[in-house]
């Protein structure tokens, strides 16, 4: 491992390869931009940009039906869009790993990000998701690894929340 403070997106990409992830569904977030670029450059990974995050929950279910592993990348506000669709992974007992970059979490500037950011973990856990947080760059890769392992080994929704202390708060110059 080199400099985790800068390299954690590359470490996530390496984990996606190690776990043979073939489908990456996403609604972009600035915190995921470097990881998204790595995935787009990889011919063995099919990247689908979504119109709304719950599409990704459904897509990962379809991928698993066909024997491919997928992961959903989104920002914390998108978790709110996923809630009912998580019933698909729960009822079918299928893997559904999510990697969530947090907004409204630590030093947030935008009032609209706070309600969902503050509720992200509670809401996911209310829907049966195993949630782990990483609040330091060094902790991101081990946490994402655990999230992937628990999803594919125990067949359920799992999530890593990457804290805003890792990503840096968007300040709009203030």
């Amino acid at each position: 491992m080199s400099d985790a403070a800068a390299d954690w997106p590359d470490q996530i990409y390496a984990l996606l390869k190690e776990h043979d992830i073939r489908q990456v569904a996403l609604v972009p977030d600035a915190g995921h931009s470097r990881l998204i670029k790595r995935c787009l450059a990889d011919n063995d990974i099919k990247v689908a940009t979504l119109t709304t995050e719950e599409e990704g929950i459904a897509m990962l279910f379809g991928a698993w039906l066909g024997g491919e592993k997928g992961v959903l990348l989104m920002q914390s506000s998108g978790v709110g869009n996923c809630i009912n669709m998580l019933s698909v992974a729960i009822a079918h007992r299928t893997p559904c790993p999510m990697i969530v970059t947090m907004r409204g979490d630590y030093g947030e500037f935008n009032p609209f990000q706070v309600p969902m950011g503050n509720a992200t973990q509670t809401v996911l856990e209310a829907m049966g998701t195993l949630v782990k947080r990483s609040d330091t760059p060094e902790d991101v890769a081990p946490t994402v690894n655990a999230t992937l392992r628990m999803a594919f080994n125990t067949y359920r929704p799992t999530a890593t929340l990457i804290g805003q202390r890792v990503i840096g708060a968007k300040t709009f110059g203030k």
Partner: protein
Amino acid sequence: MSGIELGATGKLKRRSVVRALLQDRDGLLAIGGLGAPAWDITAAGDVPENLPLWGGMGGAAMMGLGLALAQPTRKVAVITGDGEMLMGIGSLATIAVQKPRNLSIIVLDNEHYGETGMQETHTRHGVDLVTMARGAGIADARLVRTAEEVIALRAAVHAGTGPIFAQVKIDEASEPLVLPPREASILQARMREAIMGKAAHLQ
């Protein structure tokens, strides 16, 4: 192909449409949207290649996309209702951008929410799903009203020239319930085994 029937309104009967689409299916994988389309694919034969949905409203088309991308050599048909499609209408854009050749999205349009008391959907009031699909970028977007058009749709589904979108105007009469297993872990495991064999359970 015989047996495609018209109902009292002169529109296609849903069960006969689905039976025709799934006849001699040659490994075709079918996802049935929640409610009547799930019962329709079950009535045509409760086989492992069917994934009837009991929920996840708005997600059927995207499940089809994930499956079609994972299994590019198999044909995948999503058979769903107008209400379910409207809830996930943005997925037509996502699918159009991905361009899966092996995916067909077939909407059985009775212009009503059938499971909740036959309230009217937007298609009852002129919302044109074919135009929306074409606008999303699905070039083969077709309106299906006749037995001949159902037969042509079936041929297109098997030809692998997708993505295909079809809005099939159907008679609104309800059909008897034909329920699939309700334990959804069975539904996913049997389809996975049908595709990958016993190894599916060791993935």
